[in-house]
């Protein structure tokens, strides 16, 4: 600016006073809009307290590791789904990539490939499946819901045909197993690492900002010369890789590979975790830390109630009710800020 137009003190000529409530209510809502994970963290903490009160020391002790194993796979998948949801897409095939990837490791390893190389290749192939999803969605203009739905069936069929329905055993020695999900804490540590990496990506890189922009206002993103196609496709690729990684970790943890494992059930849990964590299904807002805590909330329900001795059939009622409550909390936080868009009336008489 050649001439500095400095604002006079006090009320300037261009006074745009924000017409908002003051005080605590506005602060909470503002906090939520900047940190969407708050609702999920809150309800997770409350749930922990509930189970601590009900089951006492049983909830701690060895159960913490078990709880970690419930949470970890859903958390990793939820991180990937959150990223995609934020940029306005979704991946319904994540659960099937999860099922396929460990079998790729197994078959490659049977062909005498070193197990570490086989693992890397399997994850790359999973990423490639994500790439295909992305290319079809972006360049053929097929809604990602449809693209990934079709891919999900395709992968399910491939897994069944290739394995002939038979279960398998994950390869690898003790050290491999310990690191890749076999140890008590191993999968949870992987999950936390993924959360940290992706939270960094979202907040501290242009890729993250653009992911939000593409989901929040596609036109604005185009206008700002953001390469929308690249952002979306990369997010699909990352989701694919995460899904493959999770499948391998879980397969090693359980020491069994099952062609019918994963599937839509685990994908829905992941999406539910992401949404509970504050990620909007409409795109443009969300949080991977929230996705982690959404997974914590969901899986603590399973673990805690199993601990209490509740039977399977009651679970679904409880899970359904809990998801509804979690979403209501999210929405309430969001809508606390009443009247934010209302213009103040002009003062009477004197000049404005």
């Amino acid at each position: 600016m050649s001439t500095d137009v400095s604002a006079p003190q006090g009320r300037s000529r261009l006074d745009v006073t924000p017409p908002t409530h003051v005080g605590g209510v506005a602060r909470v809502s503002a906090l939520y809009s900047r940190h969407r994970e708050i609702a999920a963290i809150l309800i997770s903490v409350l749930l922990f307290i509930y189970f601590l009160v009900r089951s006492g020391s049983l909830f701690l002790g060895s159960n913490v590791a078990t709880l970690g194993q419930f949470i970890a796979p859903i958390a990793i998948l939820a991180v990937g789904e959150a990223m995609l949801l934020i940029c306005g897409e979704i991946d319904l095939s994540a659960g099937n990539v999860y099922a396929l990837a460990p079998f790729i490791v197994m078959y490659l390893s049977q062909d005498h490939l070193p197990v570490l190389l086989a693992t890397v290749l399997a994850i790359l192939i999973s990423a490639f499946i994500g790439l295909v999803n992305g290319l079809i969605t972006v360049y053929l203009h097929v809604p990602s819901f449809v693209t990934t739905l079709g891919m999900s069936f395709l992968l399910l069929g491939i897994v069944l045909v290739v394995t002939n329905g038979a279960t398998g055993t994950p390869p690898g020695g003790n050290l491999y197993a310990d690191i890749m999900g076999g140890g008590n804490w191993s999968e949870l540590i992987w999950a936390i690492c993924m959360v940290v990496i992706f939270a960094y990506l979202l907040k501290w890189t242009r890729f993250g900002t653009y992911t939000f922009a593409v989901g929040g206002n596609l036109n604005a993103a185009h206008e700002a010369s953001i390469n929308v196609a690249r952002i979306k496709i990369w997010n699909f690729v990352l989701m694919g890789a995460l899904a493959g990684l999770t499948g391998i970790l879980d397969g090693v943890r359980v020491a069994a590979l099952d062609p019918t494992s994963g599937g839509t059930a685990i994908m829905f849990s992941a999406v539910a975790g992401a949404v509970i964590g504050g990620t909007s299904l409409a795109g443009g807002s969300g949080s991977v830390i929230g996705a982690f805590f959404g997974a914590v909330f969901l899986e603590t329900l399973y673990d805690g109630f199993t601990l209490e001795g509740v039977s399977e059939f009651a679970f679904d009622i409880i899970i359904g009710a809990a998801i509804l409550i979690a979403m209501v909390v999210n929405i309430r936080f969001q809508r606390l800020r009443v009247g934010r868009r209302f213009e103040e009336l002009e003062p009477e008489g004197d000049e404005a």
Partner: protein
Amino acid sequence: MTSESSGQSRISRRQLLGSAALAGGGLAVGSALGGVSPAFAAAAAAASNPYPSHPTWTFTLVNHVTTSEFFVPTRYGAQDACDLFNCKYQWVGSVNSIVSEMVDAMNAAIDAKVAGIGVPVIDGNAFIAPTNRALAAGIPVIAYNTAAPTTTAAKNLQMAYIGQSLFQAGQLMGQQILDKLDKGNIVVFNPSPGSLNLQARANGINDVIKKSGKPITVDNVASAATLAEAVAAVKAYYAGHPNVNGMMCVDTLTMVGIIEVMQQHHLKGKIVTGSFDTIPQVVSGITSGYVDFTIYQQPYLQGFLPIMELFLYKLSGGLNIPSSVETGLSLITKSNIGQFSKYTDRYEGSSAAQKVIPMSGPISVAAGDYPPTQLS
């Protein structure tokens, strides 16, 4: 349950490690209480219960198809046992045989320090570690409904198996086929080839037929786990093989498809058919002549006995070691289908009411049903 002896040679029953009396005793107690409401039964049990008072123990039954119709009588059996012995049971696991869900549920139960665990070992490797963990924590583990395969039997340390010997059940079916057919070609439908329990049965069938040396060819064909797809699979096969001499299935749902095809093409009495378990369609199929035989695995006992054995183990501090029980080599044909078709009852899962079911008449036992006492 007894099986009819037709005078022809049969596979003798697998050696029981425990005593069949254990099974008989359980049934006797159950039927003694028949005809009264569950609450009253519980009260009566408590009143006449000889055992000392104890905290209400929880037993966890993990399951691979928690919503399956087949396990409804299993859950009745578990509930009745719990009512008798003043315990609680918990039914958790997976809806769709997802092993990691079952392992997670089992681990949570171990953390909850339950009094005992029953689990169908549908995978040879996945349950090794959780079982060891349970045993290390002093929690007894019994396998039920599906046993670990022989290849991993050494590493699977579940204390007993209550259920059907799957391979032998297949052999029993194979034997029935040999009794009825000298040559020709048959099809064996399997909804999930490669899965532990069903594949074992299929292997048993193929094994017996191959060893007999008779010129019978066996087509092993995949059907499906849902009814509509299973029916479609059977129809597709028959369309390509209209001269098949026998149609078997190693599950029970596929038999519905087989019956439908037989009705469509008027095959009653013309081909050999055999199934497993006693869902209503199979029962009426046997009565009406479409199904030659089915092999029953007593789902009620698969719930009752594990609870009972775990309870006795816990009560006695480990003195009453769990016994394996063969629940499943009962051959059901038209001659003994009567009890199944006449009543809807708790033991078949078709009714929740507790009642006494009258005996049908003389009891027929085949030679070799119970293991002889070895003197030397």
